[in-house]
């Protein structure tokens, strides 16, 4: 210790001449640019998935209804309780759409304590439009993988000339990785026509509990193997993960569960419930997805069910419309065999109206379900459409499925923009590749490719396989050879250029440039829509029933104007397998209700 130590502390007095280090009024101070202050929620991008609610470790967030649910939006919005919030911003980081952010505002005075429980973006606040505050970097979602696990498929070379199934399916490791990305918001469930328990069966994949997964599939869909391959998967369109990333591969995960459960195990797990036999009998016309689903449900309820199928084998469009490289017949047969295990009797090669009359069906059964599908092709009715070389897609696909020889010329033109057009084009392409070593099929459509009704994947895969797609050309005439061996046969398709336009109601109403471009073709296939063959009804019934623009009119449960007759599936409104399955369930439920009221179950 020295004298210096006595005087040294006095040097602090120099601070008397410096400005004070304290701030007089800290309230007005603006927080930093990324300060985690009060929440903002952009209502236009929020989808109400509830991930913020799940991740909040303080349970400060509850999802509450603020609007009616819309497509891909639950209508719920987060209400945040500032009595519980700890400002960690995990809700911002996890947000699937990036709608939830934080402003850098941090002072809020209210006399009402309940005011601090509010719905950001709905309860207007002064900081709603503030740009500064915590946002995630580059709006990236970092708390889960955003990229889909690629599905392994045959290369174009491998699949070009054969009908082997082109998709291999996920391995367990791949499936678990893909299933891991799901946030279990359930938006998919409300979009799925049969409301499959999608988040639950995806969770079963994560857990490796395939028995559980399979049972969950069968709770809502007896055609899970089919849907696991060819479902139009509208669920994936609205998947929360599709915002700022790829949608969860819901369809492939469904297929994965089915792939992992051996058939014997499936039959063991999906047993017929031990219910008393009711003594009621139901006839189902058409062994497609709608009819067979109704049959499955009704048989499980204890009724006797007979399904009448006009063609050689059950399955309807699933067999005769969808090519084998997308849906192998074995897969379809497995789904059908589970349905048969429920006691459903399927009589093939039995055409109602020809082999058995509707009157007989009505008199022998307590209820009749009509699910006949759309098996008649609509024609463009352009000149030449009756000539040799003009075909229709549905009939061609049916003949091919039946193993008949179909002509395979070098140049084929398909008219249409739907999945059927893609199916027939890809089928013809494969046959051409096998026969000539090259593909010579062209799809010609009035709309531009973005407006095609076909699934995106189908369009992409068609292009990969060498199918040419000519968009915005309207067919005018199938021109015929005027001389030679092929005289009278189709020679080319004369088309006009389409100038896209829309009428005042927003419908497609194009103009045309009459440039008469000719697309050479040895075969022209029309895939321009289908209709139901309702000739089986006969005149009396046709008159007794109600119709709407050529379609049989039913109520939401599939009831027709006649109390004993139900109708559903593609023939009523379409447009795909899973909607037909949904129809089947509704019809079975309605019939059960009807039979219960009528006589009670015995």
């Amino acid at each position, binding site marked *: 210790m020295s004298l210096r130590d006595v005087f*040294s502390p006095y040097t*602090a007095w120099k601070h008397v001449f410096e400005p004070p280090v304290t701030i007089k009024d800290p309230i007005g101070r603006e927080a930093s640019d990324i300060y985690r202050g009060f929440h903002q929620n952009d209502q236009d991008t929020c989808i109400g998935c509830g991930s913020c609610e799940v991740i909040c470790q303080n349970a400060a967030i509850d999802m509450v209804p603020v609007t009616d649910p819309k497509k891909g939006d639950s209508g719920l919005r987060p209400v945040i309780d500032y009595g519980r919030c700890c400002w960690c*911003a995990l809700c911002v980081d996890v947000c699937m759409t990036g709608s939830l952010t934080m402003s850098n505002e941090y002072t809020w005075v209210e006399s009402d304590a309940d005011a601090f429980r509010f719905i950001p973006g709905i309860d207007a606040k002064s900081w709603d439009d503030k740009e500064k505050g915590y946002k995630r970097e580059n709006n990236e979602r970092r708390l*889960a993988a955003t990229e889909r696990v690629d599905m392994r498929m045959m290369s174009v070379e491998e699949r070009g000339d054969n009908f082997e199934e082109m998709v291999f399916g996920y391995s367990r490791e791949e499936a678990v990785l893909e299933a891991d990305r799901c946030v*279990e918001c359930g938006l998919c469930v409300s979009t799925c026509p049969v409301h499959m328990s999608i988040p639950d069966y995806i969770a079963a994949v994560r857990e490796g509990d395939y028995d559980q997964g399979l049972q969950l599939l069968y709770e809502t869909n007896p055609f899970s193997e089919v849907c696991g391959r060819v479902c139009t998967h509208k669920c994936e369109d609205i998947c929360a993960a599709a915002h700022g990333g790829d949608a969860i591969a819901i369809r492939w995960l469904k297929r994965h569960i089915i792939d992992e459960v051996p058939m014997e195990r499936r039959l063991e797990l999906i047993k017929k419930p031990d219910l008393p036999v009711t003594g009621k009998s139901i006839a189902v016309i058409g062994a497609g997805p709608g009819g067979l689903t109704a049959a499955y449900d009704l048989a499980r309820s204890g009724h006797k069910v007979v399904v009448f199928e006009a063609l050689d084998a059950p399955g309807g469009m699933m067999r005769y419309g969808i090519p084998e490289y997308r849906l192998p017949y074995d897969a379809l047969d497995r789904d059908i065999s589970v349905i048969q295990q429920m006691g459903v009797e399927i009589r093939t090669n039995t055409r109602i109206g020809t082999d058995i009359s509707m009157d007989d069906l009505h008199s022998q059964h307590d209820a009749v379900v009509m699910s006949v599908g759309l098996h008649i092709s609509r024609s463009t009715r352009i000149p030449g459409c009756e000539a040799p070389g003009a075909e229709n897609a549905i009939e061609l696909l049916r003949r091919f499925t039946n193993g008949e020889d179909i002509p395979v010329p070098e140049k084929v033109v398909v008219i249409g923009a739907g999945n059927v057009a893609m199916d027939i084009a890809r089928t013809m392409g494969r046959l051409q590749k096998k026969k000539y070593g090259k593909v010579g099929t062209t799809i010609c459509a009035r709309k531009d490719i973005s407006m095609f009704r076909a699934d995106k994947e189908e369009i992409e895969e068609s292009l990969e396989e060498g199918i040419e797609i000519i968009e915005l050309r309207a067919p005018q005439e199938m021109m015929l050879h005027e001389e030679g061996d092929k005289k009278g046969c189709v020679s080319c398709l004369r088309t006009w250029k389409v100038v896209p336009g829309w009428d005042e109601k927003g419908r497609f109403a194009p103009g045309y440039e009459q440039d008469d471009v000719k697309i050479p073709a040895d075969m022209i296939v029309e895939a321009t829509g289908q209709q139901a063959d309702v000739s089986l009804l006969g005149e009396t019934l046709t008159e007794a029933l109600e119709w709407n623009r050529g379609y049989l009119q039913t109520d939401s449960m599939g009831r027709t104007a006649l109390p004993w007759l139900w109708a559903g599936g593609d023939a009523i409104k379409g447009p795909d397998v899973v909607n037909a399955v949904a129809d089947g369930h509704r019809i079975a439920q309605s019939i059960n209700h009807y039979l219960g009221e009528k006589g009670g179950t015995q």
Partner: protein
Amino acid sequence: MLSYQTDRSQYPATGPDGKLEIDLESGKYLKLWQGPNHPGITGNMSVELTVCGDEVVEGKTHVGYLHRGFEKLMERRSFIQVFPIVCRVCVPEPDFNEYCYAAAVEELSGIEVPEMANWIRTLILEMGRFNSYMMYMGGQSGSMGLGIVGQWMTYVRDLMLDRFEELTGARVYHMFIMPGGVRGHLPEGFEDRMEGVLKTAERYLDDVEKVMFRNAVFKRRTKGTGYIDPALFEAYGVTGPNARAGGVAKDVRKDSPYLVYDQLDFDIPTATDSDIYARADVRYRDLRETIGLIRQILQKMPKDGPVMAKLPNVMHWKIPRGETYIKGESSRGEFGYYLVTDGSGYPRRINVRGPSYTHAMALLEHLIPGTNISDVAGLLVSLHTYPPEIER
């Protein structure tokens, strides 16, 4: 010269069981509580003193005023949900919790953190150390009645909090070091603003040296007071500056380097006296090292790169069975997280090793007998304890 020599006859005798015999009825002793609400206590804890005159004959640490059961709260939350809680285990230097927890989770789930994130983590830990030492300096001088240092240090710490705020989005609980990396990059111009803070800090530290360390009163009261026998270090688990002031040059940053400490150049200040003054001096010099480290980090760190590793979906994140202990050198000594996972979505066990636990409980009770009552606060602060980490 003032003398604290007291009448030895007033000391309690040792009983046959080796314990002190204190007869409160005798009128020789007084029970006195220092804390839990007391300016001379570090946060929410208290010391139950038995005094004889102004001499403390026995001291007992009482905690429980702050018990929020953090470890149990963590064990009931998913791995990502634990991340916002951990910082609360230590208020003045919360980042160590974030780092240790994140590193433990990363180790057990096999996540590799990007290089850039490791540099930012190191920067944040050093900024936290800076703040922690600032608080200590103020507390140590304040406990001896030298209030001005506390005001200066609070000011400088506040400037550093501004830097924390612009980097992490919050001033005190930063919640920035997340399993997988850190939440963001350095804002533009951060280095310059940080340099400004460091310059201000150095200017005030020069004054602190004159006012505190070259202060006859401070020296008189702290030199020789609160001596910890280096022989006790091992038995009592003494780490950090408390041990370094007794000549033990142990520092986790040097002994088992983590993050990017192996790429940084710094010294471990030590002293030999092992008293309050030596501990303050070691911390003062280490604070100077920290300022140098922050400069080095900003200079050496990569300018860009990813800051987050790819995480599994945190909403159902399961970590395989395993256990690990992650440690680091906090401003108070070895800080560690012991994490056990059992393959589920929740931690099976988390144990937080805060240096305050050993320093303020066992060690303090050992040191306190014989201290003058007015030095208890100074002694307590000199151990640099943060009660929340005693009560996890």
